[in-house]
């Protein structure tokens, strides 16, 4: 595809996005407005992540795309193909081999290294949005570090439900300053937000970029007597037997039979190759044959 520049966007646009990324890294958790472009995929389908990836990719990179933790979900396939076509970069499904990973809704189970970049697709970057619909107001609240509303919301959850009723997109405070939306990852993934890799968040429709530099403190909001607790289905993976990974629940038959499997397909596959076997792995192998 020679009709378009490397990684689709023109160099001026990439420079503008890189400036926003650098500003974001300099002020961890702060939402930097940027002149988001229309991309050839719809808003809400990862255009922010795609623009950030386009700005950071180099021809030497190895690119991985996951959606719901899986490399083979249709939109992950579509985005991976887009960069194969427009940037000609090498792609991989192996977390360890990728230098840039674009993700929607998950952080890979395998800890990332300093030489890896994790790019998040973000639908609504504003953690306070559903408490205060106005952008003018929420920007003011951030600048004044006025987060009382969020604590009241968490408190009301506890008083009504006995627990904080937020299961994903669980708000965090970055380096003691900005309250940030970690994108709709399950709160199981929140502890992984403190990592060695660079984390970049792109919200295309909302025209915002933000970032968490390596080894930055990221604290999930909670109360002393109601501490934050990451949760997952209380099962082991039925394919690889992992007990430490986030699980998808699958409906197997009309009678409501279920099985659980790792949402991170690379993690699950790697474990199975290494000889780990889950409770239903044998039965499924027969089905497939």
């Amino acid at each position, binding site marked *: 595809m020679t009709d378009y520049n490397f990684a*689709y966007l023109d160099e001026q646009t990439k420079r503008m996005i890189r400036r926003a990324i650098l500003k974001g890294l300099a002020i961890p958790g702060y939402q930097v407005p*940027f002149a988001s472009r229309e991309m050839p995929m*719809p808003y809400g389908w990862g255009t922010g992540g795609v623009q950030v990836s386009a700005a950071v990719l180099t021809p030497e990179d190895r690119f991985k795309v996951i959606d719901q933790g899986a490399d*083979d979900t249709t939109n992950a396939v579509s985005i991976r*193909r887009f960069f194969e076509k427009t940037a000609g970069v090498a792609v991989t499904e192996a977390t360890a081999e990728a230098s840039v990973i674009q993700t929607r809704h998950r952080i890979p189970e395998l800890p990332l290294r300093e030489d890896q970049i994790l790019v998040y697709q973000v639908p609504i970057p504003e953690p306070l949005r559903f408490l205060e619909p106005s952008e003018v107001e929420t920007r003011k609240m951030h600048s004044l570090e006025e987060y009382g509303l969020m604590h009241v919301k968490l408190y009301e959850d506890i008083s009504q439900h006995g627990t904080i009723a937020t299961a994903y997109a669980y708000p965090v405070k970055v380096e003691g300053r900005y309250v940030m939306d970690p994108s709709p990852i399950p709160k199981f993934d929140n502890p992984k937000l403190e990592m060695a890799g660079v984390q970049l968040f792109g919200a295309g429709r909302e025209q915002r970029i933000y970032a968490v530099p390596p080894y930055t403190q990221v604290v999930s909001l909670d109360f002393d007597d109601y501490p934050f607790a990451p949760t997952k289905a209380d099962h082991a993976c039925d394919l690889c037997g992992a007990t430490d990974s986030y699980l998808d629940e699958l409906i197997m038959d009309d009678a409501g039979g279920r099985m659980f499997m790792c949402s991170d397909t690379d993690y699950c596959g790697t474990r199975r190759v290494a000889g780990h076997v889950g409770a239903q792995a044998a039965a499924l192998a027969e089905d497939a044959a």
Partner: protein
Amino acid sequence: MYVAVKGGERAIDNAHAWLAEERRGDISVPELSVDQIREQMTLAVNRVMAEGSLYDPELAALAIKQSRGDLIEAIFLIRAYRTTLPRFGGSHPVDTAAMDCDRRVSATFKDAPGGQVLGPTFDYTHRLLDFQLAADGQVGEVQKTEPNTGETPHIMGFLDREGLIQTEPEGAEAPDDLTRSPLELPASRALRLQALTRGDEGFLLSMAYSTQRGYARNHAFVAELRIGTVAVEMDIPELGFTIDIGEITLTECETVNQFMGSKTEPPQFTRGYGLVFGMTERKAISMALVDRALRWKELGEDNLGAPAQDEEFVLYHADNIQATGFLEHIKLPHYVDFQSELELVRKLRRNVQAAGQDESKGPSGGSFSGKMKEGVGS
């Protein structure tokens, strides 16, 4: 089951092939040409150009063909193409006073210099299906007259001369470009107008209609509606002079609105403004009404809490490409989020059930645990 989530690549390829076949339809029916769409579906082409923010009838017609007539999809194709184009610079502001008008009507004056020109309008047609058109689309002879070569001055100018209409400050500087810098609020009027002119026609129509029905009513009269062609001129630094790079069709609507005066402004008429690519009359009028509603602050009017007065609400929700993308993204997999919600709801139900059982032991006996059923065998 497990295999079902695999095979995304093949599914996508097959879906695209099927889509292409559906687009073509019955192959015994002749294929629609881009020229036919451009010439005979002109108003659709105009809408795609206006909301796609790219004046190119040929490409708009191609987009309509490719999108199977889904105009929002066609607008999306044009927008995605538009962003890849280099910018050579900005043109001079177009001079709509020098427009060659195909249509020019005023609802405020019975006659004015330049006259009332009805032009090719649906306005006074009776909306009866023309079955003759199904058989053949031949058109009869149209009577021709000499074109009006005189000036067609803006009607607003006459009110301006009398000082009855609010004076508009001269905007000397080139305004910000909505497509090159992020929208930050409060936005200048120039930016608001940019957002409105590429905004969704249906959204603007409803917003404008809501002001007419009383949600921040602003008593609009169409002082002037004109449709026609204007020249686009640009300075070429290499040449050192201005050249005419082409001609575009525009619809311009100026409304005059009754205004009783406010704390800061005397009683006078105020303005709303609409300017849209192509023959897009409904959109231009809607735009003018919404523009006027959004100007409450500068005119010192009260905020009535109406949706059309809320700049953030209007500007953040007018773009149909943003809206449709985000709306339709909920078709994408959300297993991970849903799974975490599933765990949470199960936990909450267990808590409620436990509380219910405790209660049933008590004297009140009001148990609802019987009504609660654990959803799945977890």
